[in-house]
């Protein structure tokens, strides 16, 4: 598509930080997390990978928030930059709640089965 991506708009102080770099980093972290969820066999690692994915999302939100804060001086939406930061804070809270529940469920599972390996989770196939 012939659209210009606003890749150089994260101006920080006098220096220029690259939006493209932030997004690539977030993409890499997200992919590592997704790979971990799919491929790793230890449920603890899987839970950590989930946190990794959510934190990649936070990174994307934070970079876009900075981009919008610098871009939208003249725009109708003056709070565009704040929205993303607030959303990232909410994701952090939600991720904490999810991790707490996940670990609790994992502990009850471990008490019954004495394993945290996904290869042992075969009771629910007929």
């Amino acid at each position, binding site marked *: 598509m012939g659209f210009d991506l606003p890749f150089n708009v994260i101006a920080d102080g006098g220096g220029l930080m690259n939006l493209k770099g932030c997004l690539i980093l977030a993409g890499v972290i997200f992919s590592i997390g*997704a790979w971990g969820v799919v491929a790793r066999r230890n449920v603890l690692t899987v839970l950590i990978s989930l946190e990794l994915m959510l934190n990649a999302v936070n990174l994307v939100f934070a970079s876009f928030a900075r981009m919008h804060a610098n871009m939208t001086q003249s725009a109708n939406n003056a709070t565009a930059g704040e929205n993303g930061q607030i959303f990232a804070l909410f994701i952090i809270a939600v991720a904490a*709640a999810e991790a707490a529940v996940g670990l609790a*469920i994992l502990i009850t599972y471990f008490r019954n089965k004495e394993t945290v390996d996904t290869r042992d989770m075969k009771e629910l196939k007929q």
Partner: protein
Amino acid sequence: MNWSELSQLLPVGVVLLTALVVVAIDLFVKPNDRFVLPWIGVAGCGIALAMALKTNTAPWFAGSHEDGAKALILGGAFSIDGFGLGIWVVACLAGALSLISSAHHEEESTLSAGEFIGLILLAVTGMMLLAVSHDFLTLLISLEIMSISTYILTGSNRHESRSNEAALKYLVLGAFGTAFLLMGIAFFYGGTGSLDMSEIVSGQIGKMGQASQVNPTFVLLGMGLIFVGALFKIGAAPFHFWIPDVYQGAPVSVTGLMAVGVKAAGFAVVGRLFFETFASSEFSSLWLPAIEVAAVATMIVGNILAMTQSSVKRMLAYSGIAHTGYLMLGLLIAPNSKDVAEHLHSINFYLLVYGVMTLGAFGVLGLLRANGRPIESMDDFAGLAKEHTGIALCMAIFMLSLAGMPPLGGSFSKFMIFKGAIKEGHVLAAVIGILTSVASLYYYLRVVVKMFMSPANDAVKGGDEATQCQYAWATNLLIYATGIVTLILGMMPGLVF
């Protein structure tokens, strides 16, 4: 704070308050008096249901096909409209019925009664908020209220490793789906600078490409990721694989809540995203074919795999996947068409009918016992009609209605969905839907044949043990009531359609 706007969310408040009250009362009552807790929860759901029906922005039950006056409240955080209120009704119904069917076997759950019931009510709160959320922030919060409650409920039989396993799988895969959804929202925010669904719709996307504010590449990427996350949440192919395991491992009443309430809330979100946020033709030309492919795949996969199951609970899980596919046919409409309201109306009606019959079927599964456990496999149903003719008849009604046999509720709702899809020109998808729903008769009828034509299985001690449970009468009543309602909805759909 604007109280007149806030008061439109009062039904949600009632459910939330009931959840807190139940948990608080649980601290003070003696263990013998705990039987009162589920009924407080049922009363809360019932009041919320009545209030949702009484709201004058709910034209869905007034027989009108208009989407009704849409009221954006609290700065666009929530949108109170006919579609959302319809989902409220389904969610409250799912909550109340699963509370009733959990009342008699709550002694099997090691969670204390108050927490179990409080979590069910919290899940219903999340579903209701999700159905009307109109901002990505409220969407995230209500989605997580619903999901986290259901994760815990799934694992509430905590001494049974199957329940633990189901909860763990649900949590991991649910959070995986959420992460994709959130990544989609992040790129969407990057592209538009806003988290409000309606603001994006109204102005900016039309000027795409020329306005510097909207970046189409990011928005498209966001839409793709949101699409994946949404398919995960409603359990459509190719992201359906978690459903059978989770439904099978969860306690029966929780399975009913998930099959009906969570699915209804998911469809509310999908409908809102596609018909409000991505409604412009640049986007709908992309997601319409994708939905069509996913719907066809979901119908085929769900129905074929359901045939191979020997566990009725797992079979109902696969049939739930198939029904997700039928429901997705209802989304196959160009968002700017004037028939959108009618399509959403069909989806609402379908969810209501599906909810009634599915909750009835799960009620049967929860009531009867074989060897001290809730009956599960196909063989457990052998000869059920001799001992429990009434319940077997109701189960037959649910099965035939799920398959879409004519005089029953399931047929009319399916008819409306297929009719809508054909009217929009998606004939092939509708034909596949009809063929797969004919094929589904095979596995639904297997249960009926087992009940009425097989000799009784000695291992099944159905009613004797079950009727000794304290509230078996309530579940019995639920089964008969849902059976009759399924019949009535089929014969006189005009009552609510």
